[in-house]
């Protein structure tokens, strides 16, 4: 069996995926060369250059990929929980003893090499999530199971946020993508996404507007789940009427004591009692989910100012405000994004050519070989190059999703979707950041940004999926 597996491996692995991977990694190596090449370099192949280091990391990553392919498929199922536990421990250890880089206490240092456990915890979390959700008795829409899933995602997320590496932490939120695929009610997914946007919106919208939006959002979500639109609209109308009446009444009793906002808040909170009573009577327990979401968000939003002022670091605050256009400072906070847009925008259709991009070569874009690597591609290779890389990444993600769909066991499917969602999130945030669509978060572009931890972790992550896919093919071949 063992011999059989080894000989057939090259035929069974998905060569398309590997081809895409190799192309993307090579594009990354070329870009890092362009971003870190210095004119007048005497020794082009000196190991101090980033591109030489990256080539070494690519070698290590490929060895790791081979090891991953050679291990038995069941190992990953088995290792899911231990890996998760080890990952959490490493995160805590990094929090306690790690080295601080760019304000994030998220690194271990061994000599001249640094390791970021958060990169590997993504794999462990994906495996653990797949394991939890593939359990026989698991049903995603049952609050107890949903809570389990939330715990699996939130435990590492919290630690990573405590490490002050918010960007890497938020990546784990992308598992919502997987949850949706596994049948999480879409009227829960959408509000979660919207609440996230509300957090950002809370800086721009008035509290009153925010509250109204929240009420309408949660009521609609509930109505979408349970139907009965008529009664929900009546509920909204009566809320509005009650608020107006309360306002008028308060105006006569104690003028100025209650603002419309306070009146609406009072009415809504009072109405929650009725909502709870209704839920019990009509036996519609899922009403508690939007209701809980509402209360949770309300508390969350009322603390956004506090979070914003106390929890977020000044640079994070500035990044969000700058992204929202509330503050503008081209020399300071906006500098990175501005220079990044200039570099990409000046690339034009065909780009300036390899090593010819002036913005990159002369150092106008900071972090050009790591987080802002996409600028190098955009400037040197132009629209054509940028599109090529985006298409390769898009194909890889779609390929992973297809792999997942072809899996016969939920474990493999869920894992493949986890990988796809992590990649998608990284690409969206990283590329979005370089073109000014997203606030600046320090997360790398998978396989392309310079960095050993990230390259090796993403490679292992991808090749576990390839390995699962390969064993599935063996089964399917046998079965047919």
């Amino acid at each position: 069996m063992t011999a059989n597996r080894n000989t057939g491996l090259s035929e069974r692995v998905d060569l398309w995926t590997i081809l895409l991977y190799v192309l993307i990694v090579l594009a990354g190596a070329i870009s890092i060369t362009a971003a870190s090449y210095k004119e007048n370099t005497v020794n082009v192949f000196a190991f101090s250059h980033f591109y030489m280091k990256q080539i070494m990391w690519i070698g290590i990553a490929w060895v790791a990929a081979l090891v991953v392919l050679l291990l038995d498929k069941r190992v990953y199922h088995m290792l899911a929980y231990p890996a998760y536990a080890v990952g959490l421990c490493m995160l805590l250890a990094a929090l306690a003893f790690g080295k601080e880089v760019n304000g994030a206490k998220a690194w271990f240092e061994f000599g001249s090499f640094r390791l970021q456990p958060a990169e590997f915890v993504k794999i462990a979390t994906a495996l653990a999530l797949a394991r939890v959700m593939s359990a026989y008795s698991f049903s995603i829409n049952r609050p107890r199971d949903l809570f389990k899933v939330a715990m699996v995602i939130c435990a590492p997320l919290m630690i990573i946020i405590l490490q002050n590496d918010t960007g890497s932490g938020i990546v784990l939120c992308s598992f919502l993508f997987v949850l949706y695929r596994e049948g999480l009610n879409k009227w829960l997914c959408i509000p979660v996404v919207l609440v996230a946007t509300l957090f950002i919106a809370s800086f721009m919208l008035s509290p009153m507007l925010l509250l109204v939006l929240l009420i309408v959002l949660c009521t609609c979500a509930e109505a979408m789940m349970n139907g009965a639109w008529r009664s929900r609209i009546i509920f909204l109308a009566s809320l509005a009427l009650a608020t107006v009446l309360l306002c008028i009444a308060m105006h006569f009793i104690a003028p100025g004591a209650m603002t419309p906002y306070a009146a609406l808040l009072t009415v809504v909170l009072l109405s929650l009692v009725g909502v709870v009573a209704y839920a019990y009577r009509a036996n519609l327990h899922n009403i508690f989910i939007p209701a809980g979401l509402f209360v949770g968000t309300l508390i969350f939003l009322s603390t956004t100012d506090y979070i914003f002022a106390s929890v977020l670091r000044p640079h994070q605050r500035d990044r969000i405000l700058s992204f929202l256009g509330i503050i503008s400072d081209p020399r300071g906070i906006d500098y990175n994004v501005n220079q990044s847009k200039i570099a990409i925008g000046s690339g034009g259709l065909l780009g300036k050519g390899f090593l010819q991009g002036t913005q990159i070569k002369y150092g106008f874009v900071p972090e050009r070989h790591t987080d802002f690597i996409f600028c190098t591609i955009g400037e040197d290779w132009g629209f054509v190059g940028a599109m090529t890389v985006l298409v390769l990444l898009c194909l890889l993600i779609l390929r992973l999703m297809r792999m997942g769909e072809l899996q016969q066991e939920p474990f493999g499917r869920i894992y493949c979707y986890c990988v796809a969602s992590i990649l998608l999130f990284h690409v969206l945030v990283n590329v979005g950041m370089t073109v000014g669509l997203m606030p600046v978060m320090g997360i790398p572009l998978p396989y392309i940004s310079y960095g050993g931890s990230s390259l090796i972790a993403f490679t292992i992550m991808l090749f576990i999926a390839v390995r699962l896919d390969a064993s599935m093919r063996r089964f399917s071949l046998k079965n047919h």
Partner: protein
Amino acid sequence: MSGSYAGYIRMRVLQCVVIVVFLLLAGRVAWLQLFDARYEEMAKANVLRHVVQYPPRGEVLDRNGEYLVQSRECYDLMVIYSEIGKRGFDTARMCEVLGISRKRLERELANARMRPRAPRVVANYISKEDKLRFDECNFRGFYTVYRTVRRYPNHVGGNLLGFVSEVTPNYLKHHPDYQAGDYVGLSGVESAYESALKGRKGVMIQEVDTHGAIKGSYMDGYYDSLPEPGHYLVSTIDSRLQLLGEELMDGKVGAAVAIEPSTGEILMMVSSPTYDPDELVGRERGNNYMKMLRNKRGPLFNRAVKAKYPPGSTFKLVQGLIGLQEGVLRPSDLHACYMGYQAGRMKMACHAHASPIDLRFAVATSCNAYFCYVFRDILDNPKYGGVREGFNAWKEYVESFGFGRKLGSDFLDEGSGYIPDADYYERRYRGTWNSLTVLSLSIGQGELGCTPLQLANLAAIVANRGYYYIPHIVKRIEGRDSLDARFYERHYTMVEPKHFEPIVEGMWRGVHVDGTSTSAYLEGLDVCGKTGTAQNPHGKDHSTFLSFAPKDNPRIAISVYVENGGFGASAALPIASLLEEFYLTDTIRRPELLDYVKNMEIHYPFYDR
């Protein structure tokens, strides 16, 4: 749920999400790279630095080919702060070599520290010698940049040549083709011929990195351009005459202008007090400029083209000419003068001379009474039917001589002098005035104001017997065939040339026979002259002298005006005479007169209070 219909739908939805995300990113990238052209420009603004290469400014030569203005090489000291060695450098030695104060050096270095890799000016106007010494010292991080400044080998012609200065923000507002750091001529020749002198700047486009360090030239210098030096000018000035003029006028306040009558070329133009134009160049420029501004005698005021002086008796020439043209005077007409002119209670004093006298003798001896008769005859000419009309006719004549208006010379700041009109007297005397009221005009007093240039032009008109060329300061501009057309045009006065002979005769007799100007006699040169002594409310009379020589085919017409110089013959005449002698014979044979002029002491209580 795998394989189930619901799962299939959800897979499709997620595929759509992925594709939408990528389309969003692709769309944004396409917008940045293909449609929004701003980023291209911003990238260039980031990386390209346009280094201006300054052209040497055009030089100015005198009519004999001697340099009046040269461009001298000088250097700006630049520093790239980050390249200064870690151990610093010997500041005391640098200050000593470059002659700058330590305080200033430290201030500039503190500024340079702000952008440590960008070049920054530390000191300017470093002479070639200092630069060579500096190069020997080999200070790390410092280097010099070539520029040119003005240099005046003869140290003459301060107000005439004008000065060059860095453009001010205000100037930039009105002249968008200049940029900060450019030099521009602000007065005299420098401003009048700015467009010819300035040349064209070159540009060197360099690529710089984010720290401002220079990385090389853009497109291998394809878009670079070399500076084009400014054109040189040949001035009409005779620098040796100018130098003598300035020496003679030293210590006096006034102006002296000499014109070549046959061309209108200005041979010499002295405004006194003057200054050494080299003082307005270099590091001490600001201090010197302020010193001059505070000087009450006003060395920065170009009296030669701007001052308004009463012409005094020299104006009698104009009165006589108008009388002849108007037919109210014949050269042989005799008028009596016994120590003056009297009409009713109005009396105009005169000095002792024979009586009655004709026009020639009246000019030669500068008789006041004679020209009172002439002037009254012009104004009260029955032809005009009233003093008002008569006066306006007179004014028209006077203006045809170039008085009361700008001559149109190439001095941009030329003054127009002042000739009152009839309305002025109507207002002033509320309608009750006649030719007696304005009688002082007849001898060039009263409200008249003439610039020394206009007076020199009068001398040229008389020398030419009736016409003039607009006086100008530039003979030739490199690269151009001719000057402005107006300088080649003869301007006739309203007096016919035939009427000039008796006046010229009178001027000749004033020098040669018996008159006020006999000390202007130069053997064999046929000098013609007219003195003037102008009363003024600020003390002693102004001394003025108009002259040209020789009488036939005159080569020089000159006007000298010395404020508070006393009689025309006592201050202005010897100066004019010496200048004529020097110009026409190249020597001065009267050293005692030279000493007399140089040692002449005139007090100016009005200025030196």
